């Protein structure tokens, strides 16, 4: 018995030892696995850093058309605040004719620009001096730091801007430790004291009111684990925290935490880290935050949704003030400061999007253009810095006017409010840079981007290309060529009889070529197009930049072809720049996250249409604005600003377009309905009101009336179309391609009786 009992005991002990050993081996294996995971995660590419997208910087130089109010507006958009002392970067002090500012340092593509105090003096609406405020030295040209307008974050939606502990205001890490994990610098990753304290608090309350997690544990939780509160997870978390502490310093862990922690949500986009948090809530860099703003960020960590300052400002204020109380109790701020800060407003900017993702339509274009050159994961992981062409002032003008005019048009036309949609694009004529883009009425909503992706009939916007085709044949056509405005019927194989009409269903008699365009008459345009042939017209459109699939049919003369507003801007840009086509470009440069230049997207232009005919067409398009369907623009624009443009209206008033340009800005506006039903609006009534106001806001430069060498300007008598002189009362100057103008004199001219130089011959008696 005894023997057998003893052997059983031996067997049992052996089994136990064996089990423990096996368990120990497994446990060791488990620890090794955890350890490797932690090292990989922590030491490797720690975060996928989304590319950061910047607007074009505001340049400051003598002669810049900008007044003090504009500059202050620009500065506040960048999150600068008024401070007469210029106590830190990101501050300014404004007078009526002078603005002093402390510009932030910024690493531009072509080199860093240090932080500097500047003094900008104005003379009315023009910058008259830019000087270094410390030395008083004049500066030729300086840039403000560009606005961060978005980022390219991956599908799972984590967005962040990396910060280093050394760059932070000291109050932030100290305050965070005081609030979240008082014993952070003394515990070894897990704090029994904190767990006990939390347990007592939870038992008292009867449910979970307090967490006992250290900063290290929270970091682990954010790094690896989902937020389900299971024992298994708690167990892993504790061991991982201990392992992490054994490998890394407290400061490294804290820095990781500051960059990892979730601080807010914007739709699908999760805002991580204090760097992006500062931008997201306050629209400025972290090092410019003041104590009450730091307190809010620290407070939000406990529950970004519950304490969302935009949705629950009262709760957020209470939480902030509680945090400020901790700051005071810990001696981080004085009691006087505390009393002052708890009175301060939250200071959170904007609504949805909160100052970071302000221009989704534009950022979408940036993303598409980048995808041609970069892999998806490079864009979402490598922290690239993307410098774009977005001009915040142009963008603001476009957004403001779309949002202001659509309701007015709806009201006036008794259209159901909210039914109309709109899209628009502004580009620089000579370079094709996309300066502003509106993809729909909800300008902050990153949804269907009509400026890029809608394909709507362009209607009469196509007409200039018919006329341009004609003007390229100077032996046949010039601006004074008379076109018939007579009905026409066309039977094309396999199609119904086509009998186009003028929009007003009237006939207007013979028209000069330029007037037929100015008044947007359909019948003369179709007659002209048929004489030229649809192939020739389509070729001109392609030369201007049209890339669609339209077939060479007569219906293209009246715009039965689809394009997006941005494509139209490209086509009209070719006209605006004298026949040089430029691909619409949204990106200037790309930098690595360290600030090294990586790639430049150089300007690309190509002459695709001869300059002379384009000059003549532009002249006719100026007549659209002074005599034709665009003349209402001059209720907004000063009469001495020369602009050229064209209205576009499609069948049954489904689409209202206006496209046109001054010397350096091309603007295209589309207004219509998403269901492609009639709006009853023409280009002049639906799109022109927006277009002309945008051009006014842009202070668009006047087109210079300097003809190229291939063009001569001739005084003619419009009745006969022949040469005029001072004897002709209603003579007009018309540009002709050299050698293609009329040779004979009009009856009203003194020379009518004789040929040119006749009098000289007479003198010399030949």
């Amino acid at each position, binding site marked *: 018995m005894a023997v057998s009992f003893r052997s059983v005991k031996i067997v049992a002990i052996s089994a136990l030892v064996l089990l423990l050993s096996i368990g120990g081996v497994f446990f060791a294996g488990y620890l090794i696995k955890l350890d490797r995971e932690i090292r990989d995660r922590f030491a490797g590419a720690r975060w996928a850093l989304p590319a950061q997208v910047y607007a074009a910087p505001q340049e400051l130089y003598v002669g810049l058309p900008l007044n003090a109010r504009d500059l202050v507006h620009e500065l506040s958009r960048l999150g600068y605040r008024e401070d007469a002392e210029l106590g830190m970067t990101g501050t300014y002090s404004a007078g009526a004719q002078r603005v002093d500012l402390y510009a932030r340092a910024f690493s531009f593509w072509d080199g860093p620009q240090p932080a500097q105090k500047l003094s900008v003096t104005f003379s009315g609406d023009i910058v008259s001096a830019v000087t270094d405020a410390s030395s008083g030295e004049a500066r030729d040209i300086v840039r403000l730091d560009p606005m961060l307008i978005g980022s390219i974050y991956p599908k799972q939606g984590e967005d962040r801007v990396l910060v280093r502990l050394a760059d932070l205001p000291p109050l932030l890490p100290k305050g965070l430790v005081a609030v979240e994990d008082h014993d952070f610098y003394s515990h070894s990753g897990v704090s029994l004291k904190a767990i006990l304290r939390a347990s007592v608090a939870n038992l008292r309350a009867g449910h979970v009111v307090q967490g006992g997690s250290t900063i290290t544990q929270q970091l682990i939780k954010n790094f690896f684990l989902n937020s389900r509160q299971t024992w298994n997870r708690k167990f892993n978390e504790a061991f991982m925290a201990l392992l992490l502490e054994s490998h890394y310093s407290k400061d490294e862990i804290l820095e990781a935490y500051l960059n990892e922690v979730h601080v807010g949500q914007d739709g699908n986009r999760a805002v991580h880290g204090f760097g992006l948090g500062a931008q997201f809530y306050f629209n400025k860099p972290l090092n410019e935050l003041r104590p009450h703003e730091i307190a809010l960020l620290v407070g939000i960590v406990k529950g970004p949704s519950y304490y969302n300052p935009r949705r629950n400002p009262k709760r957020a204020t209470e939480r902030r003030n509680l945090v400020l109380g901790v700051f005071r109790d810990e001696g981080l701020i004085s009691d006087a400061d505390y009393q002052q800060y708890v009175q301060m407003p939250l200071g959170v900017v904007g609504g949805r999007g909160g100052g970071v993702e302000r221009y989704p339509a534009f950022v979408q274009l940036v993303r598409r253009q980048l995808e041609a050159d970069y892999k998806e994961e490079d864009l979402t992981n490598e922290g690239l810095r993307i410098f774009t062409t977005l001009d915040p002032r142009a963008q603001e003008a476009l957004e403001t006017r779309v949002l202001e005019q659509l309701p007015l048009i709806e009201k006036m036309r008794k259209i159901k409010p909210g039914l109309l949609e709109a899209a628009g694009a502004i580009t620089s004529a*000579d370079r094709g840079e996309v300066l502003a883009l509106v993809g729909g009425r909800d300008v902050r909503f990153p949804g269907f981007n009509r400026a890029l992706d809608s394909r709507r009939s362009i209607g009469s916007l196509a007409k200039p290309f018919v006329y341009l085709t004609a003007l390229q044949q100077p032996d046949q056509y010039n601006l004074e060529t008379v076109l018939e405005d007579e009905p026409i019927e066309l039977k094309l194989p396999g199609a119904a009889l086509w009998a186009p009409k003028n929009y007003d269903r009237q006939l207007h008699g013979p028209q000069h070529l330029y007037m037929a365009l100015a008044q947007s008459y359909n019948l003369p345009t179709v007659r002209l197009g048929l004489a030229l042939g649809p192939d020739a017209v389509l070729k001109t459109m392609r030369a201007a930049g049209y890339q669609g699939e339209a077939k060479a049919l007569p219906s293209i003369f009246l715009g039965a072809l689809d394009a997006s507003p941005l494509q139209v801007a490209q086509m009209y840009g070719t006209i605006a720049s004298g026949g040089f086509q430029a691909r619409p470009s949204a990106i200037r440069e790309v930098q690595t996250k360290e600030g090294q230049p990586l790639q430049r997207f150089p300007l690309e232009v190509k002459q695709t249409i001869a300059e002379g005919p384009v000059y003549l067409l532009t002249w006719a398009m100026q007549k659209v604005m002074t005599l034709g369907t665009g003349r209402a623009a001059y209720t907004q624009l000063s009469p001495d600003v020369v602009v050229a443009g064209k209205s576009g209206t499609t069948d049954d008033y489904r689409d209202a377009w206006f496209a046109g340009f001054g010397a350096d800005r091309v603007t295209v506006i589309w207004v219509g309905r998403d269901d492609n039903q009639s709006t009853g609006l023409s280009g002049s009534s639906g799109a022109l009101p927006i277009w002309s106001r945008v051009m006014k806001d842009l202070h668009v430069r006047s087109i210079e009336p*300097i003809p190229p060498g291939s063009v001569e300007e001739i005084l003619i008598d419009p009745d006969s179309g022949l040469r005029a002189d001072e004897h002709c009362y209603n003579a007009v100057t018309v540009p002709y391609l050299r050698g293609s103008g009329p040779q004979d004199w009009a009856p009203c001219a003194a020379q009518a009786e004789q040929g040119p130089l006749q009098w000289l011959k007479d003198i010399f008696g030949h």
Partner: protein
Amino acid sequence: MRSKLIVAVAALVLAACQTTQGTHQIYPPASGPQAEPLPPPPAQPEPKPLEAPAVVEPPAPPLASFPKSAEQISGSAVTALMKQARQYRSAGQPDRAAGVLERALRIEPRNYFVWSALGQAYLAQKNYLQAESVAQKSNALARGNVYVAVENWKTIAAARDARGDAIGALQASAQVEALQAQLSAAPGTP
């Protein structure tokens, strides 16, 4: 006799005002063989053109009226940027030079000296197609400025040559020579 001389001189002056096309006149000739030469502008009511006053084709402007250097038509900001671009060029960084010149173009988009310099920067980058396009753009904006045009045609000739377009390069070189001849023939130019 004396009046006949005046007539002859006036006729020559008028003839000199003709352009090569020879279709425009500054003043309308008076009628009749006995007419006074150079009649004063008509005293009748001014014609009322709808547009700006009639610009009769001017004689080709004298060379001296063309700006010779960028500084003459550029603001201080663009002048500073062009200087910076030259420094990048001589430091063998044409890409940076091009970046700076594009910055200048955003300020003065129709400054043909900047376009011209950009063409040279592209040439240095071996981007020959754009070098030519941009030089052509400068020519288009320069509206006959020979000083700029001669530089642009040099760029175009070099770009075509580098691309293996021998005939195009020869044509461009011929342009350079013609423009240089025009420059050296002009009085008052160095």
